[in-house]
């Protein structure tokens, strides 16, 4: 049981600054997900916590103790790797018992712990097999089992589900989450998959270019992204971004974009007062672009449907408003047809406006 604290963490590989001034506090028992595109520094951060990578500057605390210079084995952590990293010359049992044997646990206790873990993970009948005789999903379980037998203070997961097929990934996602509830241990989980991040994390850190973009619970990130990057990264299909201008007409503020003029709600408009620029980025999620009967400009705008992506429970419409491509979510029984024209009524309360200069959220 441990909290993890990172302060002003930096990691440079020569000229490349992989992680920059990274601060993060992870309370005990939290499932914290680090997410971002490849090369954003999430894995490097995790490896620094593990002690596999030297720290250029900054501090890492596990349970209020600085661990900067502790070797991995003395940090009381366990890590699950993307490629599982099972020892091919050992059986599943030996793989799981390896860490305990090294720590000189009594034989009976090792046996008990391995069997308990195998029970939890449903791999009891695999204990005598070698890793090469296992399927991807089974290897994954063994890798997790090897981590949990040690009962470490912190679990580190480095994209553990990336090598599994889509169906298995969904299943393991749920299992890992259940496991976390059962073990009540701090978990730091790295992934590039925002769906994994959203579904598993108690809180999520979004990273880009070595910098922390935003930290928060999944829905906070979804509904209140700190900037355009987070807004676009979290959520699938991604948020639509439209560049345009702010115009004032008769006391109201409008967003004028390609083929559309939309009235900004008064409460949002009032927050825009200090914004010096004219140009702005308007962001709206596909589900906030429902079909609607055409109305006066300011409320709806017309689009041409280009492609339809029916998923059964919903249909995604790839549409064009003037030259701007957008994705809108429609009801499964929508009357929309490819090449047809229709009107969309954006739910303006859920829209976002981003600063054109630094892409930070304005409202």
């Amino acid at each position, binding site marked *: 049981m441990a909290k993890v604290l990172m302060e002003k963490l930096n990691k440079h590989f020569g000229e490349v600054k992989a992680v920059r001034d990274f601060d993060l506090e992870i309370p005990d028992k939290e499932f914290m997900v680090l997410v971002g595109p490849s090369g954003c520094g999430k894995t490097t951060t995790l490896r620094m916590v593990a002690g*596999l990578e030297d720290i250029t500057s900054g501090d890492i605390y596990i349970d209020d103790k600085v661990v900067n210079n502790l070797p*991995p084995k003395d940090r009381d952590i*366990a890590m699950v*790797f993307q490629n599982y990293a099972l020892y091919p010359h050992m059986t599943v049992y030996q793989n799981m018992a390896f860490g305990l044997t090294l720590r000189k646990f009594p034989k009976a206790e090792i046996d008990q712990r391995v069997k308990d873990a195998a029970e939890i993970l449903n791999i009891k009948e695999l204990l005598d097999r070698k890793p090469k005789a296992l399927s991807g999903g089974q290897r994954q379980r063994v890798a997790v089992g090897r981590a949990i037998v040690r009962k470490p203070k912190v679990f580190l997961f480095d994209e553990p589900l990336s090598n599994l097929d889509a169906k298995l990934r969904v299943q393991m996602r749920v299992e890992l989450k259940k496991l976390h509830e059962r073990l009540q241990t701090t978990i730091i989980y790295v992934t590039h998959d925002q769906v994994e991040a959203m579904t598993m994390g108690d809180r999520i850190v979004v990273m880009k270019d070595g910098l922390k973009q935003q930290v928060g619970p999944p829905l906070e990130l979804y509904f209140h992204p700190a900037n355009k990057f987070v807004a676009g990264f979290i959520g699938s299909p991604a948020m639509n971004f439209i560049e345009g201008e702010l115009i004032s007409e008769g006391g109201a503020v409008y967003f004028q974009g390609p083929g559309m003029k939309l009235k900004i709600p008064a409460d949002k408009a009032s927050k825009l007062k200090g914004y010096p620029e004219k140009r702005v980025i308007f962001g709206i999620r596909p589900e906030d672009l429902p079909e609607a009967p055409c109305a006066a400009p300011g409320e709806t705008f017309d689009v041409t449907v280009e492609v339809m992506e029916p998923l059964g429970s919903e249909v995604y419409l790839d549409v064009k408003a003037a030259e701007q491509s957008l994705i809108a979510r429609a009801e499964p029984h929508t009357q929309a047809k490819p090449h047809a024209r229709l009107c969309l009524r954006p739910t303006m309360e859920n829209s976002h406006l981003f600063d054109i200069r630094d892409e930070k959220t304005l409202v």
Partner: protein
Amino acid sequence: MRERWVEKFIKFYLPLLVFLFVLLFPFYWMFITAFKSDGELYNLKLNPFLIHEPTLHNVIMLFKETLFNQWMVNTFFVSILATLLSLGASLLAAYSIQRLRFRTSGTIGISIFFGYLVPPTILFIPLATIIFELKLWDSLWSLVLVYPTFLIPFCTWLLMGYFKSIPKEMEECAMIDGASRFRVFWQIVVPLALPGILSAGIFAFTLSWNEFLYALTFISTNTQKTVPVGLITELVRGDVYHWGPLMTGALLASVPVALVYSFFVEHYVAGMTGALKE
């Protein structure tokens, strides 16, 4: 159907047969010469590819009139010790160059390789001085010490390639599991690199077994000679070649190498391809 067989024969079996013939004919020649008498050997009227009157005279002469047994023991002694010494050093060298990635690891890797490129025909002069200073002249220990000069670079490069194929995460995982660097090396890396280590060992053994130049230079007492040197110096007397016992000796000396090869062939092949299958 028939035409395809002919095509296959011309493209595949024929070249294979030629290759086999080129490789195996010397052994055949060694074998028949070993069991021919001198009279038969020099009689140009007989078919030279057959044995007409087999004799064990050469075998008896080799064992009775030379120290062949002693040479075999010497060669084993030198080859095994030199191989073990080289493997031990190369394992540590290759691992540290490949994995520890210290400041000069690249340079050291390259310099070891360059060391391998210096031909023994140049190297034996300074090495002779060193051996003399160490008072190991005319002792088998001189060879045990000198053979690693070409075995270590060779094995190090072979093993470096092999270590590269072992996923780094496996070692990192073991370190998090609680293993020290040395334990990771001993319990994870070495078992996984076993095919590579065996290949390196077989090569090292064969190279030492067949080594000629250093053995010829550093050893002069008959009882200290290795097989290749012993055969040449004792069975070529002046300009007289005792072909029979020479060939018998060569044949018998190739038996241990052949045995080592066939014993490890499975690992050996896996090692050559550097295959580490999970």
